[in-house]
């Protein structure tokens, strides 16, 4: 591997942060420049993360893989901080980049103008999320969590308005409290094992003496609660639907990946640290995950049925998808892990597309409400009020609004409800198939299957009802205008889901390879701890 390829792994973190610094230097009014820079960065991130996936897979061979390790500051592994790109991390970074690019693209149509420094915050969020996926150190994970949270605090307030401010207070408070729990958990784990490096932790955990085991598990549980808050697990999730509903649509779309950060960390830690051969801590809290997942799915399903607003449906769907992932994760098994990864990718893209399509659909139903909520400046230097004045700048208006919106909406519905032939169906089918794999099927597996099917049904009912309300009832109003810039990103996301369906074979092979790599802990541990430092040579 040549030198440049070796440094590729840090690019998804460094690049957005560097561009942020550049963007801050320019005045808010130089919109075209900012737009160009940040969209270019987001596009570059897609290319970089695709290259990263390619690199990790080992240039074409879908079955073998070695994690790529990058020593920050060139300190060898247990002492310095490492970045690790294995198949799972690379996949998550790619997913983030695709979602980030489309959401940013969508924001260019109008939302970037409803508040200051949108692009900076957005790129910072991407940097934080990518960092959380790539890091191999628990405390560094905390730092990246804080980066992404700080950016999300700014983004949730983007567009100002009373509703957003009211929703952001509980959101920020609960996340700061969760961060404190994160710190307590990290401190307890460090106190028992004496390391923060995930690979080293995986080795040391099997040697923890039995009298310290309880302390370690308490620490891990407190740490887990911090992630479960992020993942939106019942009963820690009451902030989620309201916050996501209040956020600006492109922000809500990128927030769809944030719940998955919590899921990712739990998957990583449970497969690496609390896997088999971990001594007394083997399979720690698996039952809890299963039942918390069930409770979340039930609550989310009821929420989907009970709410009439599309944003509410989307928010509760995020919870259902988190619950499904957690419950499946708690049951563990290689086939199931592959299936849940496929479900994770498919549902994240679908929810992102739904959040983007909600706004044009609702605008279509009621044009006046929308603009009212924006443009209330809180600080002097904010640049607001441009939205209403420059309506014609949105771009070429395309005809057949209803046809396009309706088509996209049906597409989203099929994806979310998990109906054939789209990727949502393949994902759910794979999970159910994996659950049926054993000779004896556990009662919890039946319960999970029932909940998956019921939540799909509830989604279908609610989405159809909302579609009839908003789209397919003939009204006297002429259809609202829709610009290409708004349609293109939605189309891109849906096309990505379509590609997931068409190329389900190769994608699924990748997921199976990922699941196999996750269950083979030695692969990760050896790669991280065996990485030699370059010893003062300039890279």
């Amino acid at each position: 591997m040549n030198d440049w390829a070796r440094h590729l792994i840090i690019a998804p973190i460094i690049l957005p942060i560097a561009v942020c610094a550049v963007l801050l230097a320019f005045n808010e009014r130089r919109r075209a420049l900012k737009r160009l820079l940040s969209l270019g960065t987001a596009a570059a991130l897609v290319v970089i993360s695709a290259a990263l996936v390619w690199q990790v897979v080992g240039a074409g061979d879908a079955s073998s893989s070695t994690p790529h390790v990058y020593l920050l500051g060139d300190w060898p592994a247990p002492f310095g901080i490492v970045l690790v790109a294995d198949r799972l991390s690379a996949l998550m970074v790619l997913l983030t980049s695709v979602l980030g690019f489309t959401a940013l693209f969508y924001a260019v149509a109008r939302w970037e103008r409803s508040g200051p420094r949108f692009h900076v915050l957005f790129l910072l969020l991407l940097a934080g999320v990518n960092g959380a996926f790539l890091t191999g150190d628990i405390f560094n994970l905390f730092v990246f969590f804080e980066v992404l949270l700080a950016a999300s605090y700014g983004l949730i307030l983007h567009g100002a308005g009373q509703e957003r401010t009211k929703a952001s207070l509980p959101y920020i408070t609960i996340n700061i409290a969760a961060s404190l729990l994160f710190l307590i958990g990290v401190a307890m784990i460090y106190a028992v094992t004496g390391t923060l490096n995930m690979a080293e932790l995986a080795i040391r955990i099997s040697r923890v003496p039995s009298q310290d085991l309880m302390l370690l598990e308490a620490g891990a549980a407190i740490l887990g609660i911090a992630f479960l808050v992020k993942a939106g697990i019942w009963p820690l999730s009451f902030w989620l639907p309201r916050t996501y509903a209040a956020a600006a649509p492109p922000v809500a779309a990128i927030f769809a990946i944030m719940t998955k950060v919590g899921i990712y960390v739990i998957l990583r830690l449970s497969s690496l640290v609390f896997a088999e051969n971990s001594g007394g801590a083997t399979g720690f809290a698996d039952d809890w995950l299963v039942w918390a997942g069930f409770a979340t799915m039930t609550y989310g399903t009821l929420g989907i049925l009970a709410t009439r607003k599309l944003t509410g449906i989307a928010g509760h769907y995020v919870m259902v998808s988190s619950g499904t992932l957690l419950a499946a994760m708690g049951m563990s098994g290689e086939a199931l892990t592959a299936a849940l990864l496929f479900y994770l990718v498919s549902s994240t893209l679908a929810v992102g597309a739904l959040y983007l399509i909600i706004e044009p659909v609702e605008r279509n139903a009621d044009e006046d409400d929308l603009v009212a909520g924006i443009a209330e400046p809180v600080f002097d230097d904010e640049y607001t009020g441009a939205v209403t004045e420059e309506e014609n700048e949105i771009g070429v208006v395309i005809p057949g609004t209803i046809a396009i919106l309706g088509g996209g909406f049906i597409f989203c519905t099929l994806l979310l409800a998990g109906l054939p032939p789209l990727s949502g169906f393949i994902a759910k089918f794979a999970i159910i198939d994996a659950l049926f794999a054993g000779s004896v099927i556990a009662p919890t597996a039946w319960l999970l299957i029932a909940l998956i099917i019921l939540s799909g049904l509830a989604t279908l009912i609610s989405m159809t009802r909302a579609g009839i309300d908003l789209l397919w009832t003939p009204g006297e109003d002429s259809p609202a205008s829709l610009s290409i810039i708004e349609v293109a990103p939605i189309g891109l996301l849906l096309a990505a889901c379509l590609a997931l369906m068409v190329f389900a074979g190769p994608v699924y092979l990748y997921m199976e390879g990922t699941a196999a790599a996750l269950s083979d802990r030695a692969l990760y541990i050896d790669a991280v701890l065996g990485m030699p430092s370059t010893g003062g040579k300039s890279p």
Partner: protein
Amino acid sequence: MEAVLALAIGTLTASGLWLLFRPRTFQVVLGLCLLSYAVNLFIVAAGRLRTDAPPIVGRGDVDPAQFVDPVPQALVLTAIVISFATTALLLVVLLASRGLTGTDHVDGEEDQ
């Protein structure tokens, strides 16, 4: 010394939690501050308590037993900076919320 530190952490946590569940936004902010102090002390305690032992290791051959574990101290430093920044941000949101809703209740509206 352990007992004093444990009492301090306990008192801070209890006061912080009590304030966190109060209905006024400023009380909540103060509660989070107290909680973060408690957590910072807790991290220091996690690195084992020692007096008169420096965390910075000198050059050359040194006896590690003469030094206190530097990692928790570095963690505390990071945690202090981050909680300071997020608290400042929360204060700004608090002011914006107060300005927009006209009340300092955490729900943005007074109890009926």
